[in-house]
């Protein structure tokens, strides 16, 4: 009984806080297999579609484990890699929100499910 209750509690808890792997699984279910290499290329790529910055690294820096800084407001940004910042990629709604904003700001368009899966796979792979 105690174990069942504990399991129930853990399940209830995981509805709010996912692991980065669970977030990735959700994206892969929509996109197909993710590629760490493609994800890194997206992270480091230079683009011209967006108005805020020409790359992810403009704000998040070349090293995903280090704190970044907003390109326009200069506000400090916590590291984006989950290995360095525990709450990264643990809330699906938050992940979607930031893909929506940042893809528009850098690429000038929405990101595909494949791009999101690749990007997330790369961030998880950063050790």
């Amino acid at each position, binding site marked *: 009984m105690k174990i069942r209750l504990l399991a129930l509690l853990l399940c209830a808890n995981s509805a709010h806080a996912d692991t980065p792997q669970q977030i990735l699984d959700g994206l892969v279910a929509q996109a197909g297999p993710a590629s760490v290499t493609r994800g890194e290329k997206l992270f480091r790529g230079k683009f011209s579609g967006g*108005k*805020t910055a020409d790359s992810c690294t403009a704000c998040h820096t070349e090293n995903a484990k280090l704190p970044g*800084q*907003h390109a*326009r*407001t*200069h*506000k*400090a940004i916590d590291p984006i890699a989950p290995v360095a910042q525990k709450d990264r990629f643990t809330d699906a709604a938050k992940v979607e929100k930031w893909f929506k904003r940042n893809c528009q*700001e850098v690429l000038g368009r929405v990101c595909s499910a494949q791009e999101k899966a690749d990007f997330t796979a790369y961030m998880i792979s950063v050790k």
Partner: protein
Amino acid sequence: MGITWKNLLTLILSVAATVMVINNAPADDEAIFPMPAGKTYVEECGSCHTAYAPGLLPARSWRRMMGELDNHFGEDASLSEPQQLEILKALETLAADGNQANMRMRRIHGAIPAGTAPQRISETGYFKFMHDEVRPSIWKRKKIGTLANCIACHTRANEGRYGEREVRIPQ
């Protein structure tokens, strides 16, 4: 009355208690602004920039800003409608010309010409007056960079605290 251990101890304790009270009391000159309740404001607005205290601008400025979020200083900062309405309501309530405005907020409002709805806090008279001693070279420091980066020096700005004693200027 001679000095006894008992009254010496009483003296020490009362001095210590007084020091604690003085250190913890918000002094009259500390700029503390009311902030919206809940997490929405800091999480939505405060993720790209400081969660500016609503009392730094009048309600008409916030109304215009919240009506133009799809072009927010050149960027699309759109929110869901419930969030947009929740934040606007809080901003209007706590604005510089709101019902509960304190003396400082009224001064901020008083320095803004009627009929204008400034969008940048840094362009208001009060901001300029309060920061006139900050050298241009300090604003250019990497960790500060822009006039919009309040939280770089006012480390508790997201709690509405702009008091001078809590200013820490990064090198």
